[in-house]
């Protein structure tokens, strides 16, 4: 685990890198890289993350069967897309949804969702592993059902800027190929697909847009399928001859998907061969009956033939095939045909029957589909002499083993034509055994030799990094676009990004073209101020260049407009108000005005003197009297206050009387009189520089 832990860290680091360099696209198979089983492919571009499929490896059990989820941070995944209901594509979903930090959205088609539940409930019941090895239980499945959303074929959905839609994939009922579009880069994930129409399914569609990257399955590598009618003939011939010789036929098959196709073939063959009517065909899966309702309902996901037939009778209402509940209800007398799950003969009913029948050479086992590496079915294809039974004993393998593939996977012919028509510049191969995949890669390289097509076969947890230079285009609309600008002109406006589309517009248009709206905040603040409005105006003019005065139209109150931003109004004797529309600069201007007004208020006492001159004069007079007295003392020495507010100056016995108001001096001594007069005039000049008459 230590090593994987490190890888996790490195991948997560890369994640943060992705958000910085938005143009890097990363694809990492967490499963199905150079193997078949546990399909799970991680993709990330421009900070958006998509996970395709969420399967388990049918050959392993418990945690070992899971894809390498610890490579990624499940909480970062935006969308999880599940292509079809097979266990190797969908079975780790309950675990991933319920036991990890995943919180994105999950999508699958209607039919897939309906069968997913049945199939997984069955899987939980059938798998015989210890409780601690159980990845999830019935409850987890039910809870996961509530989280799964459905998507119809061709329906385009958008989640978090990721646009995606799906195409019919053939393969099984409800199987889809997903096309994901992130910021114009398209990735097609085929899942399992088949380009051949069969009895009930449509062939995979060819998408109308070529993707930039195609993640494609390579199950059959360079093999070619036999034509369908030959396979069907071989199949029916083997069965016919075996039962005719009194043998039993075991068809181990996946409970759902191909089984329905084989049943359609068998039912029809029996109808055409009355001699076989006494030989029973059993379909030994309890899922069979339960899934019929699903098959009957989603006929719109099937091909035209079935839909037309449906108009007459239900084609899935088999006449010669009866369900078989368990091996206990099975008499096993004489020849019979039994179709049983699981397809890999790992356990369950198919294995029980195999153990029972394998040593009789009259019997036959027909393996009708792809078998996963590591299962018993894969082993017996090579026809070993002996096999190990479930109870651990070995037994000779005498029964005939036929491998007739009906699995609806594309073969080389289909894959190459599909890719040739689609022309993706990058091809990623997944879901194929390493050697098959390698051969396919070589063949595709030579096929696309003349073109610069990259073909990549990453192993599990091996990231593929690609770079896409997507030009960001913006649409300029509304008032801003009234005139298309010339080169060199300036464009200013709001750049609005939604998903991956950009618009440039004028702020006024914002509410027209988006759900956003703009707002104007008008502010009005009142400040106590009782001074003259003129003072404010004066001060403002000293600071600001543009101050216009006018009067308010309604009330006739004088107003000032500063820099066309803030209006100052004298609301009443004691208040002025400030008025402006919020914006950083206006806020600043208004703050400075507020400061200025407050300052003006603080200096008020000085201004008040002028407004109340009477009180002040007296005090001033007193103060002036004191000063005059003090100055006179400093000059003449002995100065006393006489009656009538006169000052009596006594210099060396000579006395002079000074009238402070008029400045007249009375003295016997003419010299002293003149000196006092001069001194008083000078003192007056100093104390009252401006004659009262001037002010």
């Amino acid at each position, binding site marked *: 685990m230590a090593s994987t832990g490190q890888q996790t860290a490195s991948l997560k680091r890369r994640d943060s890198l992705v958000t910085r360099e938005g143009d890097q696209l990363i694809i990492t198979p967490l499963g199905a890289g150079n193997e078949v089983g546990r399909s799970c492919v991680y993709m990330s571009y421009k900070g958006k993350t998509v996970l395709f499929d969420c399967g388990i490896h049918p050959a392993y059990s418990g945690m070992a069967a899971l894809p390498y989820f610890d490579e990624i941070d499940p909480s970062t995944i935006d969308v999880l897309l599940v292509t079809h209901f097979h266990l190797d594509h969908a079975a780790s979903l309950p675990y991933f949804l319920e036991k990890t930090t995943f919180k994105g959205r999950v999508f699958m088609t*209607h039919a897939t969702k309906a069968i997913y*539940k049945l199939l997984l409930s069955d899987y939980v019941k059938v798998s015989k592993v210890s409780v601690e090895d159980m990845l999830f239980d019935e409850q987890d499945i039910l809870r996961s*059902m509530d989280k799964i959303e459905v998507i119809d074929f*061709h*329906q385009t959905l958008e989640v978090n800027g990721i646009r995606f*839609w799906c195409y019919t994939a053939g393969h099984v009922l409800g199987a889809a190929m997903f096309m994901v579009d992130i910021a114009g880069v398209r990735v097609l994930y085929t899942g399992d697909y088949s380009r051949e129409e069969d*009895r009930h399914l449509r062939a995979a569609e060819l998408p109308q847009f070529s993707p930039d990257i195609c993640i494609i399955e390579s199950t059959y590598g360079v093999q070619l399928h036999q*034509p*369908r*009618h030959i396979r*069907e003939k071989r199949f029916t011939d083997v069965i016919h001859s075996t039962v005719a010789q009194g043998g039993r036929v075991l068809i181990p098959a996946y409970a759902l998907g191909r089984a329905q196709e084989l049943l*359609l073939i068998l039912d*029809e063959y029996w109808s055409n061969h009355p001699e076989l009517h006494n030989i029973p065909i059993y379909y030994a899966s309890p899922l069979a009956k*339960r899934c019929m309702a699903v098959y*009957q*309902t*989603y006929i*719109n996901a099937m091909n035209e033939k079935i839909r*037309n*037939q*449906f*108009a007459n009778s239900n084609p899935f209402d088999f006449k010669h095939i009866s369900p078989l509940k368990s091996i206990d209800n099975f008499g096993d007398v004489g020849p019979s045909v039994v179709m049983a799950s699981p397809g890999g003969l790992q356990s369950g009913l198919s294995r029980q029957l195999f153990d029972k029948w394998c040593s009789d050479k009259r019997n036959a086992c027909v393996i009708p589909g792809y078998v996963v590496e590591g299962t018993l079915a894969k082993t017996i294809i090579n026809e070993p002499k002996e096999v190990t039974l479930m109870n651990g004993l070995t037994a000779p393998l005498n029964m005939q083993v036929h491998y007739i593939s009906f699995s609806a996977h594309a073969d080389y012919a289909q894959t190459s034509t599909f890719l040739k028509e689609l022309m993706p510049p990058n091809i990623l191969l997944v879901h194929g055994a390493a050697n098959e995949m390698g051969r396919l890669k070589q063949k595709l390289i030579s096929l696309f030799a003349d073109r610069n097509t990259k073909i990549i076969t990453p192993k599990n947890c091996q990231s593929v990094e690609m770079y896409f230079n997507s*030009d960001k*285009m*913006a*649409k*300029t*609309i*509304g008032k801003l*676009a009234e*005139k298309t600008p010339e*080169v*060199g002109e*300036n*464009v*200013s*406006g*709001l*750049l609005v*990004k*939604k998903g991956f589309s950009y618009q*440039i517009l004028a*702020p*006024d248009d*914002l509410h*027209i*073209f988006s*759900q*956003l*709206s*703009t*707002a*104007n905040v008008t*502010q*009005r603040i009142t*400040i*106590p101020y009782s001074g003259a409005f003129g003072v404010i105006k004066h001060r403002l003019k000293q600071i600001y260049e543009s101050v216009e005065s006018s009067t308010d139209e309604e009330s006739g109150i004088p107003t000032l407009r500063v820099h066309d931003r803030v209006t100052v109004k004298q609301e009443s004797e004691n208040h002025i108000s400030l008025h402006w529309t919020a*914006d*950083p*600069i206006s806020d600043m201007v208004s703050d400075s005005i507020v400061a200025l007004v407050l300052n003006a208020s603080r200096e008020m006492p000085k201004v008040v003197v002028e407004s109340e001159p009477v009180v002040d004069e007296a005090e001033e007079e007193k103060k002036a009297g004191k000063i005059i007295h003090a100055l006179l003392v400093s000059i003449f020495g002995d100065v006393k206050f006489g009656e009538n507010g006169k000052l009596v100056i006594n210099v060396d016995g000579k006395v002079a009387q000074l009238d402070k108001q008029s400045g007249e001096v009375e003295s016997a001594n003419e010299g002293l009189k003149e000196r006092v007069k001069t001194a008083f005039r000078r003192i007056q000049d100093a104390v009252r520089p401006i004659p009262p008459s001037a002010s």
Partner: protein
Amino acid sequence: MGTSVQVTPLCGVYNEDPLSYLVSIDGFNLLIDCGWNDHFDTSILHPLSRVAATVDAVLLSHPDTLHLGALPYAMKHLGLSAPVYATEPVFRLGLLTMYDHYLSRKQISEFDLFTLDDIDSAFQNITRLTYSQNYHITGKGEGIVIAPHVAGHLLGGTVWKITKDGEDVIYAVDFNHRKERHLNGTVLESFVRPAVLITDAYNSLNNQPSRRQRDQEFLDAVMKTLRADGKVLLPVDTAGRILELILILEQYWAQHHLTYPIFFLTYVSSSTIDYAKSFLEWMSDSIAKSFEHTRDNAFLLKHVTLLINKSELDNVPDGPKIVLASMASLEAGFSHDIFVEWAADAKNLVLFTERGQFATLARMLQSDPPPKAVKVTMSKRVPLVGEELIAYEEEQNRMKKEEALKATLIKEEESKATIKADLPVGDAMVIDAGTTHTSSDAAVMHGDAYRDILIDGFVPPLSSAAPMFPFYDKSSEWDDFGEIINPDDYVIKDEDMDQAFMPVGGDIDAKFDEGSASLMLDTTPSKVVSSELTVQVKCSLIYMDFEGRSDGRSIKSILAHVAPLKLVLVHGSAEATEHLKQHSVKHVCPHVFAPQIEETIDVTSDLCAYKVQLSEKLMSNVLFKKLGDYEIAWVDAEVGKTESDMLSLLPLSNPAPAHKSVLVGDIKMADFKQFLASKGVQVEFAGGALRCGEYVTLRKVGDASQKGGAAAIQQIVIEGPLSEEYYKIREYLYSQFYSL
């Protein structure tokens, strides 16, 4: 300039006539809906007939006659030949609706406007789309993308979104925002600010009670009648609202273990339910969910018996029962006959679940007070007997003779022409045509037929070498190894087994119900006998709105939410249209149009737009702020050109000029109050203003209800004395916005 968009109503404006509108987008003519009324009145199709040939594509929105009824007739007689687009249920159920109409009409009249084959061929080339599938139109309409979206109302019902160059034209009529038993509500509200919205005013004056209440009243009325030993007739449409009604009844019957029989009687009832069963993908989430969990198909009916023939109903013992029969208009179909039978019994109930079309019997009965007696025409198709039969046969023969003669003459003309044109191959074809024409006309025509051949076949073309049937000697090619083998001849056909397996089935073969088939394929000569009679209407008549359309109030709020730049109103009585128009001008957008029939209005958006590339250098300096789904930033850029001659935006070479700052965001007073309260500020609403703390007040001014107009910029006034509190609250207010 933007994409040019013109809308021309062809039918269904200022009244409740069927819907049919021509929308022209940059010269590409889309016919949206192609409806007809239950009278099949050809006069209302005149406007359509004038433009049918110029239509480039047809979009259908709902599977009922009002929306697609005229399609077969227009295809056959009016020269409509454009590809048709619809959802799968609209296609299937629409087809069944048309079958039902044809069969009902044929039963009571010599209906000859279209035949079953016309219906089939009209529906054959419908391209079926799924919801939110973006379909790119190729050819003439290159660049136009059409996408159906959920409309509610009927199964498969569609709101069409037509997009070109990023501008959306949305056609949404008869939508239902409410979730019902079998349908999800419309997604119309998810479209915001489309360039043009075309919608109907049909329900703008109607208001509905809640669904629960309405359902209860419905069931009460039904149960009351049944318990009083009466019979209930519900005249319904063929394959639309009936599905909802059936589910209501099924559910109620199951819950209360009722045993009163319910019958669903149309010519196509069993097919309707069969298809309904397979359309779960199109139905409501709850139906899909219940199927996923329990595999219980909601349309696996346990209490409703499907009938396709009235005689089956007649065999049912008399007693209380419910019959759902088509047509809703009571003009034709089983409902008409049953009404005539049951109307005179006061115990019975006729419950209308939708408003009857104008001038139909249903509409008459829905008037208040209901008429005491109504005159109806009972018509019946009876086989011809005796003299009439002989006369008919003679007439037929005479007609055939005339036809044949005409054909012969034409053939002669043609053959002369071809002889002149010297085309022996053409001759051969003429002979073919001649023989098929005549041989089908049975023995009477033998002589003529032979003469035809003689004349046609054996007049030697002037240049021909021998007077023979055209015969080509197939000389085999040889090479050194003998005759050349064409490997194709020896290939075993892949399809062989399939063909054995599959019975032959055409594309459209809706399971034909026995009765209708017998009637249709019955070639025994028959005639329609009509008699006028007056029916005393003693039974109770109730009308309840189960139309599944949004009511007036919801329509208005949806319109205000969608807030299109331009709004076109169609379909709805004059008052309803006028009412909605007045309302919309005030509350939705200033550009509201309600055109008259054949009046073309130009709703081209007056938007200007151009595309620019955003250079990497510019984008690396842009800091986006996230606001919900949007990210937003202010850019100052200089315009440049890329190599491919595209305009591109580059960073400014000199410092950016200052711009007036923009506050982006939407503030709800109530939310803000909460926010302030959470910050410990005392807040309360007083006189329309928010008082915050002791002195500061916050007001929202301006006309907030007008969303579309220019006044959509919110005006917020914050007032208060100079205090610390003022600045604190201002700070909080600013925190609600992004300043750019």
